[in-house]
């Protein structure tokens, strides 16, 4: 029996519910049974609640001591074993940092076609999967047709808005036995350590771009961020030019954020930048050019000089 299977691990997030929403849409579009596969430890009650809300018919728990924390080899091996046992026809992942490694490796391991950067899914002629994916850094959308009836797809954050199912379900929970070896070929010598707060968690972000005109003006961005209790960020060119450090870069090749408020000062709105911030709840654009692309994404826009406006905003916010 064919199944649309959403696969997650670790703590649930916004993206999990988005993924479930998209998986449900595909399964009701003729994709088959709607399954949620969960790798590693998770709170059963919370899983069942979320799954029920989203109309999942079955939860498959893939558990083993080797899966208690993330390891690429163990996860790929466990998922390959899962695929062999349950034969999910469409296996969907949220495109997290680790899924970018696991999904294509699993595709290679199980000889299954894979598509990344998905924004939408549909059943085409003869039930063949159609995947709309971002390409050229967001400048275009590519629609791919996948041959055969199996596919692995990674779905981008914010592809769809999370939405509960019309009717809730009481999904059954099944355990799936896998026994990954658990020795990783890639050994962590020095773990990543976050220095201070993460842009990914910030509620307010003020970002500066080349329109700041001068490296010294990045301080104006930092001052407004501080006045708003938020964090400063940047577009790529000013990172490349050393006006600030690479950890502050937003975009396709930088951080992907979703703050409540994103103020973009002197940023043109190239799709590669917007790939990192388009999901912000409210975007404010400050740009000298009334035709700048950033205004198409913004909720509020000011046509003006950001070098004048930033300090003025800092001053007035403080009142």
């Amino acid at each position, binding site marked *: 029996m064919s199944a649309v299977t959403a696969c997650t691990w670790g703590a649930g997030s916004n993206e999990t519910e988005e993924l479930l929403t998209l998986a449900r849409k595909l399964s009701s579009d003729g994709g088959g049974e709607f399954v949620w596969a969960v790798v590693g430890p998770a709170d059963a009650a919370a899983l069942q609640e979320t799954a029920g809300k989203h109309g999942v018919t079955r939860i498959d728990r893939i558990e083993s001591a080797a899966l208690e924390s993330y390891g690429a080899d163990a996860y790929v091996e466990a998922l390959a074993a899962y695929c062999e046992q349950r034969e999910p026809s469409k296996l969907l992942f949220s495109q997290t940092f680790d899924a970018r490694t696991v999904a294509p490796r699993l*595709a290679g391991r199980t000889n299954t076609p894979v598509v990344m950067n998905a924004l939408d899914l549909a059943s085409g002629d003869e039930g063949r999967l*159609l995947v709309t994916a971002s390409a050229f850094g*967001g*400048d275009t959308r590519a*629609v791919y047709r996948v041959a055969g009836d199996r596919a692995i797809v990674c779905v981008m954050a914010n592809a769809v808005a999370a939405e509960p199912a019309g009717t809730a379900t009481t999904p059954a929970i099944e355990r799936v036995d896998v026994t990954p070896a658990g020795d990783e070929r890639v050994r962590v010598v020095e773990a990543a350590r976050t220095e201070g707060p993460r842009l990914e968690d910030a509620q307010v972000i003020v970002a500066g771009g080349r329109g700041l005109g001068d490296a010294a003006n990045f301080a104006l961005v930092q001052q407004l961020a501080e006045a708003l209790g938020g964090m400063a960020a940047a577009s790529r060119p000013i990172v490349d030019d050393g006006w600030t450090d690479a950890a502050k870069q937003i975009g396709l090749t930088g951080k992907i954020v979703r703050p409540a408020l994103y103020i973009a000062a002197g940023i043109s709105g190239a799709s590669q930048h917007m790939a990192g911030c388009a999901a912000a709840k409210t975007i404010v654009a400050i740009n000298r050019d009334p035709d700048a692309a950033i205004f198409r994404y913004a909720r509020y826009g000011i046509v003006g000089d950001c070098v004048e406006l930033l300090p003025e905003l800092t001053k007035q916010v403080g009142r």
Partner: protein
Amino acid sequence: MPSIRIVVCAKEVPDPDAVNSYAVAGRLEIGDDGKTLTQTAIPRLMNAYDEQAIEAALRLRDAGAECRIDVVTAGRDAASLLRHAAALGADEIAAIDVDASAIDYHVAARLLAAYIETTGGADLVLCGRQASDDDQGVVPALIGERLGMPLITVARDVQLADGSAVRVTRVTPDGDEVVEAACPAVVTVSSELGPPRYPTARQTMAARKKQATVLSPGELGVGDEEMAPRVELVRQFVPEIHGNCEMVTGETAVEQAANLIAAFRESGVLS
């Protein structure tokens, strides 16, 4: 230290900055086939991350590693890409003779893996983190699985420990992570590696004489039945962004700032 072989996989892509300039100007267009960019003025270049993958290999050589660096592309008409690779110091430049638009990344990976296998294997396979046309970032993982090699993604620094292990600094959302794996391994390189070098005029001249090895899929042992794409591009379009931007006006910056903050307060963006 024994000599090792590094294979760098490099793909030719439409210049992403040019594509982007058209996009920002609202002039990016798709042709009658519904899937190809029409702008003929967009030059084709080596994918920037692949240039950085070559740079990573050259830095290993600079650091004293005794290595042979071979650069391979799956696609025909890649003369300028291969010449650039040769000018940078590639020992062998190789093209797999296929129409790049008629294959998918699974076929590309199958061919690249077959090249590596049939030409003596590799101690280190270096790729870009993703190709800037399709942005997929899957070919390196597929090569790794095919060849049974571990995969290390988004490297900002690549070091060899005595030729038998690779030590990589990865760029993760939580900061830099240092990992190590025994060779052979596949490593993908990210922009954080830093700018790649340019060949000198003399190197560029000399590279013109270098012959590319051209191999057909058949010569690599890849049969017709393995050449069928399973992920097929059927359509491409330029997304429309529906704005609902409210312009905040004012005679002066002081007024504009005041009006923006008032709008924030009204809509509850700021309390």
